[in-house]
């Protein structure tokens, strides 16, 4: 079965994917932070049994302690789980569909973190799937809920709908024009937050960002989704404008071809360098300069992350070994391009 990220979606030149996360807790148990291993196990099994009873959604159930470190981090690199969830395995479990579009983290910060992903910009469709699974769980489990402040979560910043909707955006032209800080300030005034999707802190890798809603109390799911949708479309337009400007500059054009040149001939390539270069090639593809499918590039970005390479090779590699494998895979993938 194709993984969800191999599909191409709406506004796919700029919007790589859409993600909806719902946080839920069971009222009979303390939140995971106050729950011992036995209690966590009990919560995990309750949720598992609620879904596997009639196999709603076709989930498989994985206990995190049975995964290797690389396998766990690889799940985080594919954005199926949070890096935090990958960092400690005790008392944590994951439910996952075969196409990896739906994942449920059990006993992360909340008992249930349900996540649905789709390619491209598809906020309402993605929410509809999450909502459906949530309704099934709600009918079979006892949720912690208060009619004044909504779904009760361990951290009060998630109260209310307890929904985080986000879109993953590729914004190379706006980044190169130095516009990201300005955008971050603007979207924060609108109750949204933008941050790097790969890598930590201030220098996002590959010009890939996550834009999501910040406020969850007092706004309906639909209200939050409409808001995010409209800001996303404005950013998409701004990025396209900035890209057009960039492409009219021969120097910038040349950068894209050179990036492709390096990727097609390098024998060793680090993840950071790969992300920087593939970002330029993706810009070339989305503006029609280079003939290569965006889905292929999206898949390559996911597959070339360090732990994902380790997990596929089935062993821990030295960085030289990994950089060699990465360079070879990229050369093979791009050999007929340009």
């Amino acid at each position, binding site marked *: 079965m194709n993984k969800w990220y191999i599909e191409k979606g709406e506004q796919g030149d700029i919007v790589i994917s859409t993600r909806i996360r719902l946080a839920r807790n069971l*009222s009979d148990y303390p939140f995971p932070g106050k729950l011992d291993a036995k209690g966590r196990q009990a919560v995990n099994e309750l949720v598992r049994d609620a879904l596997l009873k009639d196999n709603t959604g076709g989930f498989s159930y994985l206990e995190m302690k049975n995964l290797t470190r690389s396998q766990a981090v690889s799940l985080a690199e594919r954005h199926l789980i949070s890096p935090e969830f990958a960092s400690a395995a005790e008392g944590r479990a994951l439910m996952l569909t075969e196409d990896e579009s739906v994942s449920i983290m059990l006993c992360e910060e909340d008992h249930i973190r349900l996540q649905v992903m789709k390619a491209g910009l598809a906020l309402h469709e993605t929410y509809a799937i999450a909502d459906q699974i949530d309704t099934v769980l709600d009918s079979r489990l006892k949720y912690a809920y208060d009619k004044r402040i909504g779904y009760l979560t361990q951290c009060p910043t998630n*109260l209310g709908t307890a929904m985080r909707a986000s879109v993953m955006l590729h914004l190379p032209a706006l980044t190169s024009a130095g516009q990201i800080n300005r955008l971050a300030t603007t979207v924060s005034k609108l109750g949204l937050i933008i941050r790097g999707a790969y890598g930590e802190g201030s220098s996002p890798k590959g010009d890939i960002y996550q834009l999501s809603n910040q406020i969850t109390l*007092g706004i309906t799911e639909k209200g939050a989704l409409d808001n995010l949708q409209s800001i996303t479309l404005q950013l998409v337009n701004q990025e396209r404008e900035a890209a057009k400007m960039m492409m009219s500059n021969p120097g910038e054009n040349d950068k894209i071809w050179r990036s492709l040149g390096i990727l097609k001939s390098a024998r060793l390539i680090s993840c950071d360098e790969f992300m920087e270069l593939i970002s330029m090639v993706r810009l070339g593809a989305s503006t029609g300069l280079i003939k290569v499918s965006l889905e292929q590039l999206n898949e390559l970005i996911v597959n070339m992350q360090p732990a994902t390479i380790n997990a596929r090779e089935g062993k821990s590699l030295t960085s030289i070994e990994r950089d060699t494998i990465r360079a070879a895979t990229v050369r093979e993938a791009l050999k007929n391009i340009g």
Partner: protein
Amino acid sequence: MLCQNCERNEATTHIKRVVNGDTAEIHLCRECAAHLGYGDFFSGFGINLGELFGGLMEAGLPSPGEAKVIRCPKCGCSFEDIAREGKLGCAECYTTFYDKLLPSLQRIHGRIQHNGKVSEAAGSEVKKINMLEQLREELKKAIAEENFELAAKLRDQIKETEKEAQA
């Protein structure tokens, strides 16, 4: 106007925030404003609210020597624990510390009334409240009719339902 945070001193710092398209006004005294990071306009904004949450709540802490510490009956968390970690211990904590949490919720979200999907959990709660009201009516009637055997039964039933509603 009194400070919304300590409700003791005159508010001298007035902050307007636009959240969700609604304007939320916050009025604080100088001490509380400085304490909550509104002392100058370059601190306290644009930082991850989750990380700041503990800091935001400290103002709700009792001063040393004041009253005895209230703890959540279910998980044993005190408000101090919650303020320190920025996290609550269990669902019951929200009931126990509801009033103390409200100012921080207002500051984070701009609103304090949920408006979105309703869980079935709310349905059964509403059902229980209805059931309690019915039982209380019957109890009144039983007492009026001096049917004390029935009244005792109803009283037990009410106690049982109240316990379940709180669970």
